[in-house]
Every structure is written in structure tokens, then in C-alpha cells.
């Protein structure tokens, strides 16, 4: 083989490997970015989880309720990793967390301290099919929830005269473990409450919104982003006003005289009332 032949051959071989490698890489990334299935308690972040789960099924075998299943090829998520379908079998939140305890790689934290701290997913309610939202007294999800009174609460929604008031379930993400017992128990034909990946439904307010009334209720805590910003003389200038008091300042003062008078007289009478 002469030198030219060798160089051509080596380049062709490298090109073939690179071509295969690129296709392989694309498939790998595509599989990892597919819709995220629900994970057992104590799982690492999704990408880290799929990369450290060795797909041994030990968690599946440890689960006393046959909740966990391994993802099959061509199902959403990386094949061989554990998941569960709450409508079939939810997670019954064993205190000893046997699934996480047996994980040999740490993809599920074997030392995960408290099942109530698990975040397998987040319950979301479809008001269009939720019985409570139709004005019926259902509230099954509230009653079966293992994190009772914290993950799901009932809120009273008064309705028009001659119709029922509504007692509707509200999910609180800070306490919901995503166990799915609510989804399993929901009496509607297709569950009106479902466990989903929080990323699909959870928004984020953003640090620049000041919820004034929250400042009034609690101790005066500076908004995180604002606290981080270096204090300027301009920022210090307006005196800290409590709650909705800011509505009585600023552009309200630029209001037309008659409306201002009206407001002031209203305020006077309000003060005089009690």
C-alpha cells in the first residue's frame, strides 16, 4: 500500500466512523430529550438520572406494589429506566423507600431521607372535567392525598344565586410528591387530576414582580433580585411604603382634580366611619 492509498483509506475510515457517530449522537440526544416519564422517589434530575440509571430493574423488584415498570423501547423516555403510570398503580409512598434503597448507582438516592420530600411529578387538575368544578361535592383527591391538607386543599368558590357554591381542590406544588394516588382514585371516566412533569405546567413569576401585599403580611423582606443589586441613592429615595399604600402615591397624585377630590372625600368618610 502506498502512502496515498493509506491516507485515503484512513480518511475514509474516519469519515465512516464520524458519520455513524453523528447519527448515533443525534439518536442519543433525541431519546434523552423525549417526554419525561414519571420517576421513582429520590431520582436525580432527569438528564443526570438517565445517565446514571444502569437499567437493572432492582427498584422495580423492590417495589412492593408493582408500581414501577421499565420503559420499553420506543416508549417515551430512555428504554430500561424505571417509571410508573399512576392511573394503573400509583406510588403508595412507603416510608422505607425500598426502591431508592436498592439503587446500586445512586441514580435514585439510596439515602433519600423522607418520602414526603419526594417530587415524582406534580398533580394538575382539569377544571373542565373535575366534578368539584361542576359544583358537585366530590373532593376525593383531597381525602385520599397522603400529604393530607397540604398538597391538596379545598377552596370555596361562591357562585351565582340559586346555584351551588363550589368546593374545589387546589394543588400546592410545595407539598405535592406526585405519588398519583389522587389520579388513581379520581372517579371521572378519564382522570381529571393527573401527575405530570412539573416542567410542563409550572410557571415562574420572576424576581422583578413585587407582590406588595405579601410584604405587608409578612416581615419586610427585600425581593431577592433587588437585594442583590447594589443600593443606589435613587433606590433609597422613596420611603418604603407598606402594602397597597403605593397606590396612594405617584401617578395617583397626577389625577384630575375632581376625581382626586372624590377620592379624598371617600377616604375621609371611610376614616370617619368606625
Amino acid at each position: 500500500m502506498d502512502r496515498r492509498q493509506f491516507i485515503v483509506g484512513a480518511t475514509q475510515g474516519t469519515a465512516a466512523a464520524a458519520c455513524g457517530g453523528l447519527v448515533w449522537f443525534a439518536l442519543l440526544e433525541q431519546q434523552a430529550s423525549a417526554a419525561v416519564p414519571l420517576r421513582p422517589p429520590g431520582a436525580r434530575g432527569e438528564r443526570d438520572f438517565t445517565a446514571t440509571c444502569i437499567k437493572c430493574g432492582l427498584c422495580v423488584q423492590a417495589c412492593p406494589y408493582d408500581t414501577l415498570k421499565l420503559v420499553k423501547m420506543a416508549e417515551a423516555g430512555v428504554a430500561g429506566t424505571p417509571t410508573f403510570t399512576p392511573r394503573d398503580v400509583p406510588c403508595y409512598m412507603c416510608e422505607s423507600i425500598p426502591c431508592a434503597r436498592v439503587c446500586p448507582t445512586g441514580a435514585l438516592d439510596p439515602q433519600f431521607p423522607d418520602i414526603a420530600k419526594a417530587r415524582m411529578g406534580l398533580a394538575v387538575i382539569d377544571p373542565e372535567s373535575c366534578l368539584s368544578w361542576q359544583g358537585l361535592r366530590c373532593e376525593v383527591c383531597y381525602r385520599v392525598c397522603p400529604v393530607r391538607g397540604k398538597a391538596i386543599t379545598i377552596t370555596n368558590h361562591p357562585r351565582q344565586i340559586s346555584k351551588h357554591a363550589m368546593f374545589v381542590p387546589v394543588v400546592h406544588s410545595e407539598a405535592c410528591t406526585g405519588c398519583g394516588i389522587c389520579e388513581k382514585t379520581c372517579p371521572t371516566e378519564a382522570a381529571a387530576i393527573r401527575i405530570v412533569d412539573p416542567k410542563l405546567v409550572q410557571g415562574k413569576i420572576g424576581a422583578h414582580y413585587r407582590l406588595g401585599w405579601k410584604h405587608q403580611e409578612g416581615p419586610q423582606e427585600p425581593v431577592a433580585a433587588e437585594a442583590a443589586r447594589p443600593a443606589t441613592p435613587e433606590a433609597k429615595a422613596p420611603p418604603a411604603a407598606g402594602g397597597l399604600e403605593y397606590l396612594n402615591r405617584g401617578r395617583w397624585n397626577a389625577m384630575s382634580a375632581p376625581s382626586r377630590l372624590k377620592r379624598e372625600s371617600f377616604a375621609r368618610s371611610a376614616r370617619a366611619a368606625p
Partner: protein
Amino acid sequence: MSALTSASQSSRPVRHFEMPASLAGKLRVWRFTFARRLVQFGVLLAFFGTLHWGWTVFGQPLLTGNLSAAKFAGVLPLADPFAVLQMLVGRHALAAEVLIGAGLTLGAYALLGGRVFCAWVCPMNFVTDAAFWLRGKLGLGSGSDLVRLPSQTRYVILALALVLSAASGLLAFEAFSPIALLHRELLYGVGLGLTAALGIFLLDSLVLRHGWCGHLCPLGAFWSLVGRTGQVKVAFDDASCTRCGDCVKLCPEPRVLHFGNAAASGMITSGECTNCGGCIAICPESSLRFDLRARIRGAAKRGPANESTPGGST
């Protein structure tokens, strides 16, 4: 090639392997195949029985998990070192258990010969052996391959798997491993794992002889590298070999039966040898046998002195 022309072979007539007519003789020829099926099926059954029928040993589950990671008797962790290596190159922190398990498994195969996994444990071996059997029935020799591929392709795939695992932080081979897929299907129920097995059966039987194990499988390539330190080897007796070549025709890794190397070292040295025992069973001159590397080497060292007396008499 000098070994080919040595006096001991050229003077002897070449006999070829013939299947014995007696049942006892047939069983003797099939003994390693039976043993391999027994071990392959036994491992699978131990996993299956523990999973589905609650088999125990000393009050502990017999063998939980699967070939990727397992626990024997509730105490002994085992893990696939290649899968763990893909995690490690992705710079993931891992729990100690899987590292210990991978270390123990690696150590065991490093002693037995890495590719003992391929011939004696891997569930895909059922499929590839069936494909090879079909090729024999159809009379398809190596010349009838549809495509040609260097057998070193698997080392490129092995390297790619590690590079991609490092680049993406994901498990490049484990994500698609047809072996893991098939094994999981056999344990947990039918799915695409059987499709993977069918694909490999078609590849091996009709497209490329020993296509998967001999050309593509990066896990086999990994075990080949580990197998270089193997202590259980196929010993080769150069004096009785007539170079009939029957072993080469049967061997899933024909290159490992290099007579020159084998004659020089007294054994099949390559880590690619799967210790399947096929060559031993069909050798018409009984020139091949399993032995320990240390004993073979010891015999080879004493060889020249020993051979001088009996060698002169023949």
C-alpha cells in the same frame, strides 16, 4: 507459517472431523455446547425465578436485577463494567455499590477470560448461534456475505461509545444495547427487544457471517480487551495438529486460531477467543484442550528439554 512446514505435520495424513455415529460420541462432541446452554439458561432462569417466582437462597433473593447490575443472595453486588465505564467517562458521581459490583465482575472475567461472557452468559448468543447453525444448513460460507466489514469495526464502535458518552454525559451504548434490550424483554415481557434479536438473527444468518458478535458488538470488544489477562485458555498441541482447519471453519473468531502464534505459545493467546470450546470438541486429533495459562506456560518452558527425548523417538 514456519510451524506449518515442520516435520511433525507434513508427515501425517490429514483427517477431518466426522460426527460420531454413536450417541455417546455425539454427546461428547456437544459437551461444551450443552454446558454453555446450561449456564446461559441457568443465569437467565436465576434472574427470572427470583423476579417472578421469588426464588431465595439463605432466605435472601437468589439473583435480583439483571445483567446490567445485579445482587446475588442480597449481599454480593455485580455490575456490567462497560456500562459503569460509560457513566465514569460522563463524569457522573456514582454510589459505591455499583463500583464494587463492576470491580468484582471485571475481576472475575479478567481471570476467566473476558469473552467467556459472550459464549457462556450473553443471551444474544442463543440468537447468533442459531443464525450460524442456519448458515450451515443453508450452506452459506463466508464467501456468501452480502457486505464485508473489518472485524476491528467493533473497536471503533467501542471507542465511539466512550467518546459519545463523554461528550453527551449519557450512556451511548446502554441506551440502544440490543443485548440489554433482549435480556430485559426475556425477564419482563415482550417488546422491541425481540425485534432487536430478530434483526441480529437476520444480519448474522444472511447478511454477514458472525456479523454482530464478530464485527459490531462493542461489549464483546470490551471483553476482548479484558480477556487478554484471562487465565483459562485453549491449549494447543502443535505436535498432533495436522492443520486440517476444521476448527477455523467453526470458530466464531477465526483469526484467533493462528497456528503460528498458537504453536509458539502453546495456546490461543488472543483475548477475542470466547472460550466456547467448539474447536476442542471437533478437533479430530484432540490437539486442543482447556487449561490454565500458568500451566501451559510452564509446560512450554520445560518444553524444549522434555521434547528432545520423546520428540526424537517419533
